[in-house]
């Protein structure tokens, strides 16, 4: 009962924090004081309709996406990264690695299902082998002997890749709150993978629901801990365009494998 109240309290604080960050991420249209004078190299003159620009990615929701991108920057700065730094400070490196291994091992279920759905025997076998080895010799996935001792690193597959494998296009580019760049296909995949995970329920959350929230929180922290990307540290004023482009290209490679 007590726990429930503190959970609600925490949820409320989180809600307020997110709303504030959202507002901070909003663009108040700045005032323009002087009359505009055309540029020396105006976009209208330089950009030609008969040229395909690599930077063009289908992005009909761009204003919204940019707003979420900026929100994510704030969330990263004031919530996510401080929490991750706290986690890194109090947790020994060995434990951090074990936490990462644990979540990777659970992730082998997703790799297995999606490799099987794509009828990829080697990828399916890899996921099965890794899950079997790391769950046993790797002490419930806390260690990764499959990579370290047996030379079988992870073969990443997800439902977004499965859809791509069967010819589903990217769809519109999407920036997801907190999670970052995606597209319509991969967001669908994300939801599908989540549903599959709940259906299989490998950690039996159904009968011990009090571990479910800590599990997802720790997973979020671990994921951020492993992700080297930091908003606006590419140095590019066109970072949004860059991330949008590279995300698509990276997924294209992943799907091809």
């Amino acid at each position, binding site marked *: 009962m007590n726990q429930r109240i503190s959970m609600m309290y925490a949820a409320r604080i989180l809600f307020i924090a997110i709303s504030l960050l959202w507002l901070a991420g909003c663009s108040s249209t700045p005032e323009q004081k002087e009359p505009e004078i055309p*540029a*020396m190299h105006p976009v209208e003159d330089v950009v030609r309709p008969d040229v395909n620009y690599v930077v063009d990615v289908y992005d009909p929701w761009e*204003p919204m996406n940019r707003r979420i991108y900026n929100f994510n920057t704030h969330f990263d700065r004031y919530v996510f990264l401080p929490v991750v730094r706290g986690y890194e400070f109090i947790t020994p490196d060995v434990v951090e690695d074990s936490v990462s291994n644990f979540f990777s091992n659970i992730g082998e279920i997703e790799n297995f299902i999606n490799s099987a759905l794509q009828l990829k025997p080697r990828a399916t076998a890899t996921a099965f082998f890794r899950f079997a080895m790391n769950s046993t010799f790797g002490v419930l996935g806390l260690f990764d002997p499959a990579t370290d001792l047996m030379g079988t690193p992870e073969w990443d597959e997800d439902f977004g890749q499965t859809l791509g494998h069967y010819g589903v296009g990217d769809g519109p580019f999407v920036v997801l709150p907190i999670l970052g760049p995606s597209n319509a296909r991969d967001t669908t995949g994300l939801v599908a993978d989540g549903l599959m995970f709940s259906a299989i329920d490998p950690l039996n959350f159904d009968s011990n629901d009090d571990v479910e929230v800590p599990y997802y929180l720790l997973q979020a922290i671990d994921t951020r801990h492993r992700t080297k990307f930091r908003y606006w540290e590419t*140095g590019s*004023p*066109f970072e949004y*365009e860059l991330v949008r482009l590279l995300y698509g290209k990276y997924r294209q490679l992943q799907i091809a494998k």
Partner: protein
Amino acid sequence: MKARSSLWVLFGLLISACAWAGTENYTFPIKDPFAATVVGTPRDVAAEPKPLRGANVRNFTVQVFEDREKPDVFWYDRGLRTAVAYQDHKAPLIFLIAGTGASFDSPKNRGMARAFYKKGFHVAAISSSTHPNFIVSASTSKLPGHIVDDSRDIYRVMELMMEEMGDRIEVSEYHVAGYSLGGAQAAFVSKLDEEKRVFNFKKVLMINPPVSLYNSVNILDRMLEENIPGGVDKFDAFVDRLMDAFTEVYTTVDHVEFNDEFLYTVYRHRPPKDDEPLAALIGTSFRISSANMVFTSDVMTNAGYIVPKNRVLSRGESLTGFSKVAHRITFLQYFDELLYPYYKSKQPGLEREELLDQLSLRSIEDYLRNSDKIYVMHNADDLILQKGEIDFFTEVFGSRAKIYPFGGHCGNMDYEVNVDHMLGLFADAGAGQ
């Protein structure tokens, strides 16, 4: 007169022979200058491929202009980002200046920082004055490219960094090093230090610097323009072919990861038939840096260059159109259309050639020739040098120049042999181990 000049030539040759000595058995694994420039030093022969565990590193921002107004579109910029790795005892400190477009924590700066830190130095890393963060937060003119003025800005940043570190570190003596443009700037920073005497640099190391900025940016501009089949308008097809190569390697080679080794892996498994795509990649990388710089300078100075003059960009606005234009502007256009007019307005009557001459190591040739503390490490096949420019270093620096037969532009910086030589130059720096 004639006899004297031929004597000079002979003297130059002798000195070249000295600079070349000991490099006959140079075993850097990538002999092609284009490939070396693109893929860099392979991990297995790099001096310090991994981050040092347990190093004390302080990341902080420096506020150079307290009252500078930042346009809303750069809302995320909170001051010049820098880092200092410091020893817990009195030690020499080395400043590292990054190359064109690169940040203080660029892979090349990191490689050097690890080597020096391990050797017992404090290391202070600085972004290039052409990096957008530097333009927004630390550039006086907000129009980088003038090496003398940029070096003055860098010098000020160095002072502020030391102020910020305060009692946290004890410095026995100061050194400065830089690569590429940062290498040339190291020399100008050192020259400025002769007047200001804040640091009294003991040693200065220039790694793969340009001789003439103009010549080097000209070469780099053309690398993109001349190596995309069908011209820059067909850049998309070039990227598609590149993706095909990546895909082929990624799907057929086991255990390929996206890290600093990825390009090397691709190169090993699918070496291009000629240097054209590699040259195009080098040109692309330079163009991206220059596009970032041009756009940032344009907005910061309200120059009306790509963005209409007086337009106030909001933080949620699409920049895609501007990015298309920015990536079509050559560095030389930037020079002729923004930089030169700016300096001409400050110094009426300034000729274009005059400005170009100021942006060259030749303008401080006497200083370089007579200053024993300045060293250079370079490669005979460096792509940013015009034919014959490499001789400038052998002739002016004499035995203080070390010229490797290959390595391209900065490709061999992390190579064990190079790092050993680099640290050897600082061997008598009192690094308390």
